[in-house]
């Protein structure tokens, strides 16, 4: 075990800086979840008020009426679906991808990116917008900066809720014939 402490001047006294890790981009996650797919067909799902109400009644707040669902296909048949979403916590913004089987069950959840703000800017659209369209840096080369974050346990309840929401939205979209 070897611990080299950061100089006090740059530890205790330093202003807190933001922190961001990008693990995978959406395309890499799609390939990881469905390596056999020869096509990913995008479907724009638009739920109307009645459909949103139905989800609400089932205990799922859909949050948005519009969702982008990718259908992973092989030789024309559907292998499953991928939905990319992001959730905002107290200070953190987490982008994640959910892979679902053809019958709508969760197959895999991959975290694509984690960004830690230092303050209330997490609530500002401008702060969040700077990440739109960013590509992943993974795979990293050792020797690049791979700082790790430590602290009180970060709660990932928002991601768990988000996965549940995506399952409900995809189930509803399949039932309504929006994904065929």
């Amino acid at each position, binding site marked *: 075990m070897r*611990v080299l402490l950061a100089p006090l001047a740059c530890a205790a006294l330093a202003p*807190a800086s933001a922190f961001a890790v990008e693990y995978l981009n959406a395309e890499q996650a799609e390939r990881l979840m469905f390596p056999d797919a020869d096509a990913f067909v995008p479907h724009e799902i638009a739920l109307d008020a009645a459909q949103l109400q139905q989800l609400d009644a089932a205990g799922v707040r859909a949050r948005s009426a519009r969702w982008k669902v990718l259908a992973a296909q092989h030789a024309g048949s559907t292998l499953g679906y991928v939905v990319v979403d992001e959730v905002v916590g107290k200070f953190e913004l987490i982008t994640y991808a959910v892979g679902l089987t053809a019958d709508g069950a969760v197959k895999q959840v991959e975290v694509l990116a984690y960004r830690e*703000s230092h303050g209330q*800017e997490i609530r500002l659209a401008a702060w969040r917008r700077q990440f739109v369209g960013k590509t992943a840096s993974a*795979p*990293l080369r050792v020797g690049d900066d791979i*700082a790790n974050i430590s602290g009180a346990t970060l*709660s990932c309840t928002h991601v768990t809720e988000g996965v549940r929401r995506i399952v409900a939205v995809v189930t509803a979209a399949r039932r309504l014939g929006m994904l065929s």
Partner: protein
Amino acid sequence: MRRKRRESDAGPPEAAPLAPCCERGAVMMRRARVLLGTLVEVGAADAEAIAAAFAAIAHVQARMSVFEATSDIGRFHALPRGASIEVDAQTAAVLAAAADLHAQSDGAFDVALGSAGGGWRVRGCTLTRLDAAVRLDLGGIAKGHAVDRGIAALRSHGCRAGYVNAGGDLRVFGPLELPVVLRDEEGGGVRPFCRLSDGALATSHFAASSRSRLYRSERAVAAAAIARHVCVAAPTCLVADALTKVVAGTGRSDHPLVARHGAVAWLH
């Protein structure tokens, strides 16, 4: 004025400005999953090894989570007084380690969270409920153990270097020097803390708003007033994780157990 300066400082976020790691050249991948109720990150050069590490951590969650009725802990809570169950060998090992730490720390570390210290017993893989009031929660030690199992999985897949970070409880091995930044629990953001090689580091934050709670013994309440943010570096993550509770509960970063386990502790 202060707020404005903070916003303009925000800029595009970057990884913390620390010097690079020592082993140049090897292609490392880092992946993250949501496990143990937190973000678990694994870094290694081999995708299969990373998958095995996540599987090992998922096994710990399935067996030791207090939130899952089918886990060993969930099944224990369904037992009447005097009854026993057979538990996973890992659960038994973690419970045995917890019992040792409870004795060594004079009760400051307690997986029964003060509900009934002597209310359970583990012999081999047999876990017995001795008191109907006892509740077990491995939240203060199982995450560290899960990190250790993740590291073992990376090693058994032939990785020369790697790390596992379960929401702040982390361990690194091999010719790697991992820059570690500490999260500011009050205001967000991170500050550089250390560079870690061949060892583990666990951090706990004890405040009214935080998830980590000390059980409400008078001693813990008194100590909580001074112990807010605890970091412990130790050879294994199980020890580092558990010792954060001992240090916070006693308010002593020089608690004798810390040195006995080859660890170092900091109170912020």
